[in-house]
């Protein structure tokens, strides 16, 4: 039994709304470890929001149990239970008639913290979400932008330092640029606060970005797959998951691997200062159709093939095609592919952070990387089907941050 690290455990959790024939949530079993971000994602109407609201009992379950930190909370006072869980919703729901400071102080006030402690905490939190307490504490929600409101919504949710935060599509109503920024800020914040987070979204890209683990839900909140983003992308457990990830799955997968993780190809190279004979010789020694010319500091400069070498009128440094921009070893395969498509070449030079040549990556390299990732993940997934993983839970156990 892994309940030692399970922050939240749902056991045969079922909800049927009055007058409906189907269960909105049908016998759901789910375990969420301490300190991880679990994403509930699925098509609309699959019951993901209902599931979230069952956890803090804004919706009372028809049957089944809810455990929080090993304690059965299915029938404790729901108001008290909710003070142990932060709650962030898409509409934010800041109280318009209260100042930012009073909004954030909502739960601490209910817990009867003293005034001094509350005001210290409020200032700390406003700063934590990247805003200035001296400017914003006394303002009203309508004086804030959408992104700022959502930041305050997050600050309010973690005000009393609850171990768990429930988030219902928190960033969906924000424009794409600010959404990305808020997501990054939140991930950054999470490295500090280390909360257990249950996060509902309908956006698979957001799920992949934010989640330590993703639960893909089908109708009735049935778990179609519950695993790391990598595994879900590379080894979808069913046709449903594959369809849900969508046509871009292979591309999304490329974001999970870095160029430095794949084996680079040995390419024939020559000095930029070499004469045509030496270059032709290098070309003939190799099966590749071209030679990569490097400058004195071994930075890739030109791609040169046999036909280019016929242009005797052109000086060597201007032969063929420019090799820049080269790809950094730290870039993802997605970046590499993007670069190749942009430059209309089937290959691209790879350099380290100083710009020094490391090797060449080809489209074929990327294709075979996808194939092997898929095979690996499938093997891993099948091997783990019975036992719950993973090393994330032990990671989290080493970080008993932030409880008070």
């Amino acid at each position: 039994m892994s309940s030692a690290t399970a922050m939240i455990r749902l056991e045969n959790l079922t909800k049927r709304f009055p007058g409906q024939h189907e269960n909105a949530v049908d016998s759901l079993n789910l375990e969420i470890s301490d300190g991880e971000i679990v994403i509930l994602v699925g098509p609309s109407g699959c019951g993901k929001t209902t599931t979230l609201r069952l956890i803090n009992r804004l919706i009372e379950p028809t049957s089944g149990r809810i455990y929080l930190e090993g304690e059965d909370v299915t029938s404790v006072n729901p108001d008290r239970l909710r003070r142990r869980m932060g709650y962030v919703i898409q509409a934010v729901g800041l109280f318009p008639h209260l100042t930012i400071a009073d909004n954030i102080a909502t739960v601490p006030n209910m817990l009867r913290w003293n005034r001094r402690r509350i005001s210290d905490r409020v200032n700390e939190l406003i700063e934590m979400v990247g805003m200035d307490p001296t400017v914003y504490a006394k303002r009203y929600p309508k004086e804030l932008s959408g992104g700022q409101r959502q930041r305050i919504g997050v600050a309010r949710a973690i005000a009393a330092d609850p171990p768990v935060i429930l988030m219902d599509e928190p960033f969906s109503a924000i424009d794409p640029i600010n959404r990305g920024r808020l997501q990054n800020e939140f991930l950054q914040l999470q490295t500090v606060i280390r909360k257990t987070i249950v996060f509902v979204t309908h956006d698979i890209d957001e799920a992949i970005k934010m989640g330590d683990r993703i639960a893909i839900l089908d109708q009735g909140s049935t778990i179609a797959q519950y695993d790391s983003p990598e595994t879900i992308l590379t080894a979808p457990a069913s046709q449903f998951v594959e369809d849900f990830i969508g046509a871009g799955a292979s591309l999304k997968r490329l974001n999970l691997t870095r160029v430095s993780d794949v084996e680079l190809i040995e390419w024939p190279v020559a000095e930029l200062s070499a004469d045509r004979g030496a270059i032709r010789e290098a070309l003939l020694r190799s099966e590749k159709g071209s030679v990569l010319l490097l400058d004195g500091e071994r930075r890739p400069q030109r791609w040169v093939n046999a036909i280019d070498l016929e242009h005797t009128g052109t000086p060597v440094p201007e032969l063929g095609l420019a090799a820049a921009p080269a790809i950094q070893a730290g870039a993802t395969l997605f970046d590499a592919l993007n670069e190749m498509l942009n430059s209309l070449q089937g290959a691209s030079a790879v350099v380290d952070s100083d710009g020094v040549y490391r090797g060449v990556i080809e489209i074929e390299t990327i294709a075979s990387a996808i194939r092997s990732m898929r095979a690996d993940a499938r093997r891993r997934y099948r091997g783990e089907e019975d036992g719950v993983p993973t090393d994330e839970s032990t990671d989290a156990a080493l970080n008993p941050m932030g409880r008070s």
Partner: protein
Amino acid sequence: MSVPERRPQDVSLTLATQPLGPGRLPPRPTSLLVRGGLPRALRYVGMPVFLALVCLALYLWVSARELDSIEQRLLNQDVLTELVWDHTKLAAVSTLAVLAIAVPLGVLVTRPFARFLAPPVLAVANIGQAVPSIGLIVLFTLTIGVGFWPAVYALVAYSALPVLRNTMVGLRQVDRSVIDAGRGMGMSKLRTLLRIELPLAVPIILAGVRTALIINVGTAALGTFVNAGGLGDLIVNGLALDRDPVLVTGGVLTTVLALGIDWVAGIAEDVLRPRGL
């Protein structure tokens, strides 16, 4: 000249339904001193000045006339003070009673467990307002006799609807997500009602109360028919005895009182409106 009765139906309809419009309430600047700027300051100061001028004009007009004994008996300081005081008392007591009855009732019928009560309660309140006010007063007099209280009962029955309806509308228009957030953070239902729902409904409830107050000040003039006193005495006597100064004084004072109370209510509305809305 007719009895200067307000047209309460019209007033309550516009005031009570205005907040339902798509734009909701206009945004309010936060500081009491600066908000509204010059026009608001003019409104605050302008109305009392205007009313004082009207009273002065009335005084000069009446003083310039030769009053006969009947007119002298009615138009003197003691009588007028008593009538204004009676009138104010009728309006104030009935409005307080409306507040005490209609706001809790409005809260009750918007709670999920009592939602089924809303249609019948609204139907009763609608009947109260649909029956002509003079008819209501007579009905109450027939059952409980004449005097101050029957008039108050009639006024309450007549003016409960705007407060009840605005309380219901005010509570229902509170953004669901705000309530959801409060409940989701562990606020109890009572706490959510007192800290979130009612404060956010205050502007709309106050608009209803103001409407009820205006209805009551106007309709209190009918109190004279059931011996409840008030400025209606002057109007009725003026008509019955064919004394223009008495009639005009009654009409003008009723109007000045109504506008004055509305002015006070308007200021109260601005002060009591939660900041940040």
